[in-house]
């Protein structure tokens, strides 16, 4: 059954990808890429990667679509057409790369094969040791937060780089870095005139934020964690902003607070690492945070996930406002 669904979803993704490349209307292309992300999320769910599926759905299908639409609102909807040079050369190279890839897949282990190398080396250790060393049910959280917590620290910094980068680039030629709620033009995108989206959006927003908080603090037991939670909370606030307009949304969560959240999350995460150094352990060795190593791991995970959630929420909303608060003219 998985095979049938998987084949169907993957071929749909190929079709959607081709449609995106061939589409000249950018609005349609953005919508198609949202569909692409949803298909991807379903695929990941089929492969039992619920954590990744949740992230892909929230960020890929949700927030990046809104961001792309926000950018579109500031430019034009139709793509300028121009014939690319060396078109056939590019196609030939693509086909060549495709053939090489297909050739290389022939020695791949089968999906779900318990003898595959990935199931023989570090993965069994993670599965065995997580209950003993960290004592939480969600092994994914243990791997991302503790065993490979340094990677996750890097990922949070990637997010922060994106946030600082957008604020920096969009502030060129302006007098302030962050959008000033008092100077927001009145003609930003909003749906107040459309009754059905208005009512439903307003009803949904608080529940989305509540669900985000649940995912944040329940990440050790079920799928989720800081990344997913941050994306969900940001999605809730963005929905509110889309429905009510920029000004009320900025009044609800001011830009300074968002900026502080983005930076504070990284400081919190790095701070936990430095605290463990000061207590005599290595960077991000949560075991030394408390006298009981397992309790230390719990506290460490809780704090760093909070840091991740803060930065993700702060950055996603900062980026959204940086686009949405601009005067389209």
């Amino acid at each position, binding site marked *: 059954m998985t095979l049938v669904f998987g084949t169907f979803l993957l071929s749909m993704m190929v079709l959607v990808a081709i449609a995106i490349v061939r589409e000249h209307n950018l609005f349609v292309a953005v919508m198609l890429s949202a569909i692409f992300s949803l298909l991807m999320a379903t695929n990941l769910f089929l492969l039992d990667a619920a954590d990744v599926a949740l992230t892909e759905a929230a960020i890929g299908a949700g927030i990046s679509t809104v961001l792309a639409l926000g950018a579109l609102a500031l430019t034009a909807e139709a793509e300028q057409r121009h014939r690319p040079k060396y078109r056939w050369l590019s196609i030939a190279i693509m086909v060549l790369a495709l053939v*090489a*890839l297909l*050739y*290389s*897949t*022939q*020695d*791949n*282990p089968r999906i779900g094969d318990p003898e*595959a*190398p*990935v*199931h*023989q*080396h*570090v*993965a069994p*250790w*993670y599965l065995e*040791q997580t209950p003993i060393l960290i004592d939480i049910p969600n092994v994914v959280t243990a791997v991302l937060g*503790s*065993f*490979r*917590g*340094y*990677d996750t620290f*890097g*990922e949070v*910094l*990637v997010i*922060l*780089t*994106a946030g*600082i*980068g957008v*604020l*920096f*680039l969009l*502030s*060129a*030629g302006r*007098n*302030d*870095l962050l959008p000033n709620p008092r100077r927001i033009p009145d003609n930003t995108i909003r749906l107040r005139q459309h009754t059905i989206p208005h009512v439903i959006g307003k009803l949904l927003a608080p529940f989305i934020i509540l669900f985000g908080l649940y995912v944040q603090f329940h990440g050790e037991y079920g799928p989720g964690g800081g990344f997913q939670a941050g994306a969900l909370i940001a999605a809730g606030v963005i929905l509110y902003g889309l429905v009510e307009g920029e000004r009320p949304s900025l009044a609800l969560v001011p830009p300074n607070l968002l900026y502080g959240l983005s*930076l*504070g999350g*990284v*400081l919190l995460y*790095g701070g936990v*690492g*430095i605290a463990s*150094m000061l207590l*005599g*352990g*290595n*960077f*991000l*060795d*949560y*075991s030394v945070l408390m006298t009981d190593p397992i309790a230390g791991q719990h506290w460490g995970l809780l704090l760093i996930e909070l840091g991740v959630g803060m930065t993700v929420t702060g950055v996603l909303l900062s980026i959204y406002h940086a686009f949405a608060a601009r005067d389209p003219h």
Partner: protein
Amino acid sequence: MTLDEAIYNQLPALQVIVPLIAVPLVAMMRARHLAWLACTLTSLLSFGIAVVITTELLAGATWQYAMGAWPAPMGIELRIDSFSALLLLIVTGASTLMLLAARVPIAAQIQSIRQPLFYAVWLLTLGGLIGILVSGDAFNIFVFMEISSLATYVLVAAGRDRRALAAVFTYIVMGTIGATFYLVGVGLIYMMTGTLNLADMGVRLEQVADSRPVMAAAAFITVGLALKAALFPLHIWLPNAYTRAPHIVTAFLAACSTKVAIYVLLRFDFLIFQESIPNHALHFAGLLLPLALAAMIVGSWVAMFEDNLKRLLAYSSIAQVGYILLGAGLISTTGLSAAVLHMFNHALIKGVLFLAVACLGVRLVQLRLSELGGVARHMPWTMSAFAAAGLSLIGVPGTAGFVSKWQLIVAALEVGPWGLVPIIAIVTSSLMAVVYIWRIVETTWFAHASTAVASVREAPSWMLVLVWLGVAANVYFGLQPQLPLTLATGAAELLLESCCD
């Protein structure tokens, strides 16, 4: 355990953590001078840590660090050897030198309120590059590659020149393709070995050697990193990005960003693929040598006719990437140590050349040769430093550039009669360098003064001090190349240790 020892053991982690933790602090600052000061001190501290790490390494210490105290390959491991140490010196040293010089040129090119963010992004670039160098884990390298790449895009687009945005867009697309190729390759290796730790990967790949996914992985990783390293013909993103970036950013990037990509490329090809793919050394040389030779000739050729000073130097950099990969493609201890040494020397040379350009940029907006006639008579100190670094680029004896080019020629001679081809290319490319450096010297010193430069003053003396410090380093390492040479030879032996017997 005393405090000293406690700090000592944490040095590999501190090397990368210090600049990254400083990022949010610098981004919070409102005063631009304070932000500059904090950023420069952080960079200086990183440089200090790199110096201590290198000194200890030369005294026989080995540097390994388990992040989160989880043993590799379960956790992520940091590993610093002589190859990474040399690159650490380049990256942290270049960053510190450029930051010390940055205040005046940045004030001219970036609005005051945006400067704290600029310095925060600079630290992200620095931390990202360091993270790649100290890491012993393939996926971790990808994460830090993302940090440094994203931050670099922002730095390049930071100036007032709006044409930078178009240049950055090309750079983003190409850089993302490079990073994605790298990630696909790492994914394929993970599929076949179940590990992400580089050392462990080398061991476990032997069991699945010669399988198709591993070969595909080698292709993906090599092409992806060659794209990031701007190896000809994958260099098209580089000239515009270097030309349009703020001058001081160009100086920083030219000194280190492509080198870090070459570092990862050599690590993967020598330590991982050569062990596990039969004849990989031959494939590697067969692919890289012709491209390296082409890069040396084409890069220098274009530079000879280029009018824009920064673009001219950018094409010269493309030629220099060719020199480095030529040495690596010879697959011998001498060749590899020449390559690694040239990474160090080229960083010294291009750093100084672009810093001199930044000095020009403080006084002039247009940096086209046709509008720089006679500028050296107004800015003699700047332009003589430029000429001195130019001599090092050409490879005049007594300068750093000579040492590595000489090593390259020696390595080529070891190959036998075929070694004549690279030697001809080295000599031709160096003669072309004589032409384009002389063109600049001739125009700026002897040509009729153009109207644009009539009222130009010499650059700020603090910047001149730093440029001349760089020139002094070029001469010092030309006469006393022991330090980089020892590290480079150590790196070459390390890379060849496990393969190519």
